[in-house]
């Protein structure tokens, strides 16, 4: 198996491929193949997955998806999560990270508390949230009652389901965002703070002129990751609203829509079309964000 550096030998190649084989087989069968098939499936008007044949080649499935009112709800909800819930989560995390990094005592303890949701099951905690959100017995409505706010039918009113979903989503994402931002803050060289103090910068100024600019790559990273993650929300919906996706499908997200269409309704080609749309959307967002961040973010 000897390999001479800088040269690809036949034996070396064979050896290397042997190491790669397990990964390669799995990734080919469960990533590349289904990816291609998803594109293919989405191009048929009807599809028999057991025979892998479809009829009516064209964009009909895409049209069906784009005209489906459930898909509209799903897109609206998903965008709400990406453009409202995700930024809110990052801002809260930023505040928490700055606060935690500014104290000395109990730092590790608070870090432990805020990171806990990262390891716990979205589904299981979702069951708990379902209970917290309960219209009659839920703790959240009880707290609201203390401030004389009328109980909200969080999970049953089609108008409020998205807020329940967003709250749970924000809560669940704080852990990851906070920990990454905390590390980001701690990685800023101490000398900049010393310099800023000598330069007479006040607390607020240090945060806005030193900390935040230095954190900007981390924040952009979280935004990209968070954007993509918010496009894939599914478990939260299932945990809070069960199999059907909330009153009048009001809590649908794009992935939940995909799941319902193919598992609930067995329309593979439609689901595949929705998946392709999701894929393209994620791809575009990622590319745009990368271009934007190159322009505005300070990298060391």
């Amino acid at each position, binding site marked *: 198996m000897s390999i001479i550096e800088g040269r690809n030998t036949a034996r070396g190649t064979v050896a290397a491929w042997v190491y790669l084989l397990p990964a390669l087989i799995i990734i080919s069968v469960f990533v590349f193949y289904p990816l291609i098939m998803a594109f293919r499936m989405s191009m048929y008007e009807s599809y028999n997955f057991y025979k892998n044949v479809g009829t009516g080649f064209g964009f009909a499935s895409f049209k069906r998806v784009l005209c489906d009112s459930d898909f509209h709800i799903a897109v609206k909800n998903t965008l709400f999560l990406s453009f409202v819930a995700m930024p809110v989560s990052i801002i809260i995390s930023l505040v928490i990270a700055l606060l935690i990094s500014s104290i000395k005592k109990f730092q590790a303890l608070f870090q432990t508390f805020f990171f806990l949701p990262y390891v716990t099951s979205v589904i299981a905690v979702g069951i708990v949230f379902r209970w917290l959100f309960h219209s009659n017995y839920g703790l959240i409505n009880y707290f609201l009652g203390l401030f004389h706010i009328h109980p909200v039918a969080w999970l049953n009113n089609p108008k409020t389901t998205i807020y329940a979903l967003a709250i749970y989503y924000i809560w669940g994402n704080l852990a990851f965002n906070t920990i990454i931002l905390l590390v980001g803050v701690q990685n800023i060289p101490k000398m900049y703070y010393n310099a800023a103090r000598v*330069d007479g910068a006040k607390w607020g100024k240090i945060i806005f002129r030193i900390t935040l600019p230095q954190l900007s790559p981390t924040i952009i990273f979280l935004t990209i990751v968070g954007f993509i993650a918010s496009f894939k929300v599914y478990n939260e919906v299932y945990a809070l609203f069960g199999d059907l996706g909330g009153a009048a499908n009001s809590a649908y997200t794009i992935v939940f829509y995909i799941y319902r269409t193919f598992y609930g309704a067995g329309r593979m080609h439609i689901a595949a079309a929705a998946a392709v749309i999701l894929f393209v959307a994620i791809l575009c967002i990622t590319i745009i964000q990368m271009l934007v961040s190159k322009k505005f973010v300070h990298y060391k």
Partner: protein
Amino acid sequence: MEIRLENIQKKFSSVVAVHDMNIRIKDGSLTGLLGPSGCGKSTTLFMIAGLYAPTAGNIFFGDEAVTLLPPEKRGIGLVFQNYALYPHMTVLKNILFPLENMKIPKKEALKMAEEMADIVQIRDLLDRKPSQLSGGQQQRVAIARALVKKARVLLLDEPLSNLDARLRLETREEIRRIQKETGITTIYVTHDQEEAMSITDDIVLMDKGWIQQQDSPQQMYLNPGNQFTAEFLGNPPVNIIDGKITDSVLVVCGEKLCGFDGVEDQPVVVGIRPEAVLIGNGDIKASVRLIEIVGKDKIISLDLKGCLIRAIVSLDYDCNVEELLSFSVKHSGVFLFDKTTGARIKGFAS
């Protein structure tokens, strides 16, 4: 602005970094804080800057006690070892930053920044980011940022350590020029004795948290107060040999070197500056063990009955290994130190 440190002590948990320190830094002088790494010189600087609080003692700027004053209220400028230029701001923004914090109107601040940029000669670099500058240029920006707020005191923490040898020479002259031009009281931390010797008016030499000596570079070199000072200054370093005084004569390795009046008979540590070994002039005989060429000098290691003594001669001096040479020593370049304390023992030429 005169600076005084009175009985300053600094402990980090249980480690004492600076012991009972008393120094006075003259107004308008360029003073070097010199010492090997870990000697407490940076700690001292950071206490003067207000980034560290002394565990005990007081610091005065003129008559004002500033011991516990936060750094921004001390009117100091500090240049960090790595410059600590804010990487996301342009050079101009970096220089403007302290002024911005002092709420100086934009127009005036801009004028001050530009003036400062002229002094350190970086006028054409104002729109660049620090990452686009060379080490020397970053250094100038750091100095400009430190001085722009009309600092009363300029503090420099190992300012040349990140530069290459050539740039180091150039930059230290530059620092000297800027200091002279602005007349600002400056404290300069360095571990490089040559650097300190070449540009400072005054040196505070430290070791293991204790002050060893404070003097002008010349005085410190010519008249070291203890063995550490003698050893730390000078390149090639001073020769350190065991010897003894018998009947007012210094004896090293059984050979009489020179007379020392006023010193009792005792064993001593002898320090001999290499340039105080005068070859071809005298009647002490030693053989040449090693010849090294260092720049424009030649260093000859002489074997005096088992004791090695380095002497410095000019490059064109001709000799060979094993050759027997005669020499004498210049009394002013020979120092005696106490064997246990390392303190200087003074005597007179006879």
